């Protein structure tokens, strides 16, 4: 199989805190790869590492065979035009209308005339169902609509890959359904490669072609959604079934209750 992104034995830490301890993962071309894990595990950080916004301590991340962190700034910016990222908040520019937001990458990176841009923007908005909202300002949009508008912006330049950062977080069932459908359809129609970072288990199991589960600074499970569901790892099962206690403990590490209350030294 052909891989678009290859994370090879990567270690990353923030200050003194180790976030990733030698993780490896590969993202197959044209597929939807999901990255799941408990919150606070640094899933967004992973996307920023792939996008070249952060540098790993050791190891390497390649995009289409080229190392992201070894390329020049110019080459990195050129590569970023081929990837796109949907931020959790949408990250629309609040001082521009939806139309101008979607037109933004086109105006920055192409010399298309305004009439061509208008057509492209209308098509992109149509594909996320927001052509009627072109004149609205981001503050007037609901959370789900803002994310769809941001998605239209993310596909404006027809990238090779889209990274979704928690696309389902805080969505009602309808917008969740819309987003699931959009991610699948856009991936297949535009021949994209998608990376979806999330902790919404049910949605992911329905759309992802391949799944990685991260916990405890490393990859604890990977496979197709069937393989993941059949996994015999206790940690993976705890995560899938949402058990409160298990290998990931309910209690944040602390001194024992008796010593905390009674002042006994352990």
């Amino acid at each position: 199989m052909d891989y678009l992104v290859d994370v090879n034995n990567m270690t990353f830490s923030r200050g003194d805190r180790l976030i990733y301890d030698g993780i490896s993962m590969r993202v197959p071309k044209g597929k939807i790869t999901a990255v799941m894990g408990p919150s606070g595990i640094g899933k967004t950080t992973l996307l920023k590492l792939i996008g070249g916004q952060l540098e790993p301590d050791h190891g390497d991340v390649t995009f289409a065979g080229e190392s992201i962190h070894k390329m020049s700034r110019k080459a990195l910016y050129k590569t970023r035009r081929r990837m796109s990222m949907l931020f959790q908040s949408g990250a629309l520019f609040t001082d521009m209308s939806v139309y101008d937001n979607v037109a933004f990458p086109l105006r920055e990176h192409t010399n298309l005339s305004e009439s061509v841009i208008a057509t492209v923007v209308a098509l992109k908005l149509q594909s996320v169902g927001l052509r009627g909202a072109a004149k609205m300002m981001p503050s007037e949009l609901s959370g789900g609509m803002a994310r769809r508008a941001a998605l239209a912006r993310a596909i404006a330049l027809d990238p090779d890959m889209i990274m979704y950062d928690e696309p389902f977080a805080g969505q009602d069932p309808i917008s969740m359904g819309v987003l699931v459908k959009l991610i699948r359809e856009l991936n297949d129609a535009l021949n994209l490669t998608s990376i979806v970072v999330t902790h919404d288990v049910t949605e992911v199991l329905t759309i992802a072609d391949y799944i990685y589960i991260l916990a405890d600074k490393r990859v604890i499970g990977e496979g197709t959604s069937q393989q993941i569901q059949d996994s015999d790892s206790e940690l993976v099962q705890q995560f899938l079934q949402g058990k409160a206690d298990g290998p990931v403990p309910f209690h944040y590490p602390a001194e024992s209750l008796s010593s905390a209350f009674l002042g006994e030294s352990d």
Partner: protein
Amino acid sequence: MNWVQHIGRQTIGRVAACGRAGVMLFGALFALPSFKNIPLTIRQLYVVGVQSLAIIIVSGVFIGMVMALQGYTILTDYGAEGSLGPMVALSLLRELGPVVTALLFAGRAGSALTAEIGLMKATEQLSSLEMMAVDPLRRVVAPRFWAGIIAMPMLAIIFSAVGILGGHLVGVDWLGVDAGSYWSIMQSTVDWDKDVINGVIKSLVFALVVTWIAIFKGYDSIPTSEGISQATTQTVVFSSLAVLGLDFVLTALMFGIE
């Protein structure tokens, strides 16, 4: 040993911040100039310049009026009320114009710049620009930076001009100083290079420092509500202190012992 560690950590933190600020300034100043940035700069000129006009004009008039009033009561004791014009003009052009404008600018436009850029960071707009292969330094920082540098000297000149008119209003129209001596003694005393140009140079330096601090504080802020409020406060405090400190140095260099 704790406080030694603390001092060390603080110092290292400060030095690192200076380094980041320098890198940011370099990135903003030496980003390849692009024609797409000109409309952006003009828009920022409107925001930081035109929208600051009201506060600058009102403050200028009142400061001119107060100076004429104070100056008149003192000068009249010595029968020197004819010197009211040059007194008002020189204080405004040399000191009050650039300094008060810079302080007002830090409070009015600097804090807004910090909050805006800090919020852009908190809402991931800066990150998303980067991921869209658009350099935020060129797109967001540079236009605001240039707008600040262009706007502040103009505001300072307007401040001084309006202040001189305010002084005229109180000194001549109200207290009855002779209009001819107000203007003619001012004209013969004020030197173009020494007073006017030096005032503009001061104001350019203040513009650089205030805008730099404001933008860096936003760009480097911790992207939380608390972080942004802290950054905004720091912008006003640091730039006010920097302006006052630099003013002394510049005054010593320009008007000091020759």
